[in-house]
């Protein structure tokens, strides 16, 4: 091979080729590098034939710039656009992510409750437990999301064409089966699951830890102390009603979630539940206040007023909701 003096000083060219090469898959790399080197030499030769007074460095710079940025050129050698999670797999990824995040929420709620159940009553702190639940959820959700993403990134690279095609038209769709445009019966799974979690929490809080609910303060010994605020009489009166309402709500939410949309039956049941809620609110209005009476008359009076007004607003709100739901149901007939 004939090596001219020029070829020995081609550091720029070598750097360029190296930059492209390191972005290529290893199988291609050596061959592409060799080919590029040969092609760049051809270009330099042609150039020096035309512009003999150009410095070697200027010539190299010009040729390399004409070829283009190394990252660009390397990208073009790739067979297909490089995605972490490509368009064809993305929909499935979104669906799975939704399910995973919901499952994590549910699982954590249950495990928090179980661990609370097993802790000695003196050392239970509801607020701290709730805070910890949220923090734990963030961590668990992040890592679940990470795993899901990782798995789908692998799928993107390994799924055969046939499998991808299967993924796309897994549901043979029928235009007649599409839901109507303004579909008020669509559910949002995310908010349903959140609602379920909170209902479970409420059930457990008021049933198992009612005596922990109240004002929390620290004692100098370093432990949390709770002044229970819930009045036992009020609790005895209302808890059965609340429990019934929560359990029914849970059952309804679970059913709707499973069916993936509302239908007339579930809507009617929802209406019934709202009616039941209304009944509970009215009972609460005319019943004892929820907290243990304060010694100070003045405070007690004010609080009672506020409480009753809050209930009244709640009643009005529920009435409005019932009216809306009823109206919607009638319209749909």
């Amino acid at each position: 091979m004939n090596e001219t003096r020029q070829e020995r000083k081609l550091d720029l060219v070598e750097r360029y080729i190296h930059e492209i090469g390191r972005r290529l898959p290893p199988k291609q790399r050596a061959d592409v590098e060799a080919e590029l080197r040969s092609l760049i030499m051809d270009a330099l030769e042609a150039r020096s034939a035309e512009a003999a007074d150009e410095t070697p460095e200027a010539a190299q710079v010009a040729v390399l710039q004409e070829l283009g940025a190394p990252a660009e050129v390397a990208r073009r050698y790739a067979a297909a656009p490089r995605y972490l999670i490509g368009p064809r797999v993305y929909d499935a990824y979104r669906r799975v992510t939704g399910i995973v995040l919901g499952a994590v929420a549910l699982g954590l709620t249950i495990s928090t409750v179980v661990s609370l159940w097993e802790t000695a009553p003196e050392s239970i702190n509801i607020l701290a437990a709730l805070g910890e639940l949220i923090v734990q959820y963030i961590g668990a959700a992040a890592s679940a999301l990470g795993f899901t993403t990782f798995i789908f990134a692998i799928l993107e690279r390994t799924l055969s064409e046939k499998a991808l095609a299967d993924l796309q038209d897994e549901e043979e769709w029928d235009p007649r089966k599409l839901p109507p445009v303004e579909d008020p019966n669509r559910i949002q799974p995310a908010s349903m699951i959140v609602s379920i979690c909170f209902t479970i929490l409420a059930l457990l809080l008021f049933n198992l830890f009612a005596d922990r609910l109240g004002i929390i303060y620290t004692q100098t010994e370093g432990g949390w102390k709770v002044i229970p605020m819930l009045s036992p009489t009020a609790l005895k009166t209302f808890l059965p009603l609340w429990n019934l309402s929560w359990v029914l709500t849970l059952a309804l939410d679970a059913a709707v979630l499973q069916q993936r949309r509302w239908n007339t039956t579930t809507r009617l049941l929802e209406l019934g539940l709202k009616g039941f809620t209304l009944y509970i609110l009215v009972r609460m209005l005319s019943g004892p206040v929820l907290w243990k009476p304060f010694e100070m008359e003045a405070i007690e009076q004010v609080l009672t007023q506020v409480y009753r007004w809050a209930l009244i607003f709640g009643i009005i709100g529920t009435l409005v909701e019932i009216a809306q739901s009823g109206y919607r149901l009638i319209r749909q007939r």
Partner: protein
Amino acid sequence: MEEIIQNLILELRRGTLILSVLSQLRERQYGYALKERLAEQGVDIDQGTLYPLLRRLEKQGLLDSEWDVSEARPRRYYVLSEQGREVLTVMIAEWQQLVSVMEQVLAADK
């Protein structure tokens, strides 16, 4: 508007690029010479685009390639494969069809 026009022109050119490249490879060529040959005929294509394109076409089975070390500098030569020739024939027919259709469509618009 200038940008839109440039993009549309790019799209148009991109569609004919592969066909023009294939059409020049009935005889074996190496990358740089091919670029020159295309340029002589009015097809301006970036080297940074052409060379990876040749590789991809080879990977798809439309081209055969081999290193030629007989000359002063080793060069990689490309030529249409058996399959490539068939594909080229089909594509040329397709192109001619397209041209006549477009002539009609554009004429009707006058």
